[in-house]
């Protein structure tokens, strides 16, 4: 298969490193600014919910972190698959960089969800709620990936083996999600935890979408910065890297 030119350029570490230097500040600045705006908007300006009153304001951060966690897993698996199929080292570096960030965001979603659960459902943790369970398993998948990577000394081998795990995992994520959901619908027990609620009004939807975009951009900013560090680690003593280092003779 013939690949376009930009694909090859994206496979070149110096090119990517410099591209991120140019792109990074924009992504990070915009992402953090949107998060700040969204937080102020959501906390102070958006009207209180008529059912949940003020506590609903967690909705401006909790679903976003959960969604970023899942997106991180998909990014990781797709990058790992590209790295495995086309033997592209930089794609492996992307996959490695996405894993810890995704784990952090998933953890954050679980914690904020527990905090939100206490006043609305009366419990911090509900074993058996589909979303909590699939999010928990997602966190375990991230941790398994990181543990497996940590066990290898040889980086090339670690790249390929963890790529297989990531791809198997991404096949499993939807299965896990739906199996947990079916399990509950098969279950005749009370389903108090249907947090669908009424559709959102515009004055809540706008800050919601602002933080969605803010978290997404912040995730990609963190990912690219981590990728830069990963590239430096992997390139070792490459010539282009030496020219870039401040304080050492080029």
């Amino acid at each position, binding site marked *: 298969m013939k690949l376009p030119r930009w694909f090859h350029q994206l496979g070149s570490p110096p090119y990517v490193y410099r591209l991120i230097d140019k792109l990074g500040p924009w992504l990070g600045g915009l992402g953090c600014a949107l998060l700040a705006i969204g937080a102020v908007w959501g906390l102070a300006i958006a009207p209180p919910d008529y059912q949940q009153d003020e506590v609903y304001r967690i909705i401006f951060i909790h679903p976003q972190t959960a969604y970023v966690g899942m997106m991180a897993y998909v990014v990781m698996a797709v990058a790992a698959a590209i790295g495995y199929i086309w033997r592209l080292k930089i794609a492996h570096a992307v996959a490695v960089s996405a894993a810890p960030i995704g784990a952090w965001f998933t953890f954050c979603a679980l914690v904020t969800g527990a905090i939100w659960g*206490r006043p609305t459902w009366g419990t911090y943790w509900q074993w058996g709620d589909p979303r909590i369970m699939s999010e928990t398993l997602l966190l375990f998948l991230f941790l398994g990936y990181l543990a497996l990577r940590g066990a290898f000394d040889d980086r090339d081998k670690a790249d390929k083996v963890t790529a297989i795990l990531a791809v198997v995992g991404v096949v499993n994520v939807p299965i896990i999600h739906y199996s947990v959901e079916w399990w509950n619908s098969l279950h005749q027990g009370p389903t108090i935890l249907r947090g669908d609620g009424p559709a959102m009004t515009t004055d809540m939807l706008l800050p919601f979408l602002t933080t969605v975009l803010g978290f997404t951009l912040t995730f990609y900013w963190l990912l690219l910065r981590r990728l830069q560090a990963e590239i430096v680690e992997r390139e070792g003593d490459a010539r282009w890297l030496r020219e870039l280092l401040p304080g050492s003779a080029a």
Partner: protein
Amino acid sequence: MIEFLRMGGDGAYVWSAYGITLAVLVVNIWLVRAKHRAALSRARAIAAQAEVPRRQPKVHRVQ
């Protein structure tokens, strides 16, 4: 202002959720920075070791 911080009695929940999210973001930024700095200083150490300028290998063309 106090009313804003109380969040209708649920202030502890709302603010702790926002605080933890902020903390996760800050920790992530700090982790990335630390990793980048460590990688750069390692690369610098390697570069300093290889300071002796490498000559380009001479190529003799066979006419």
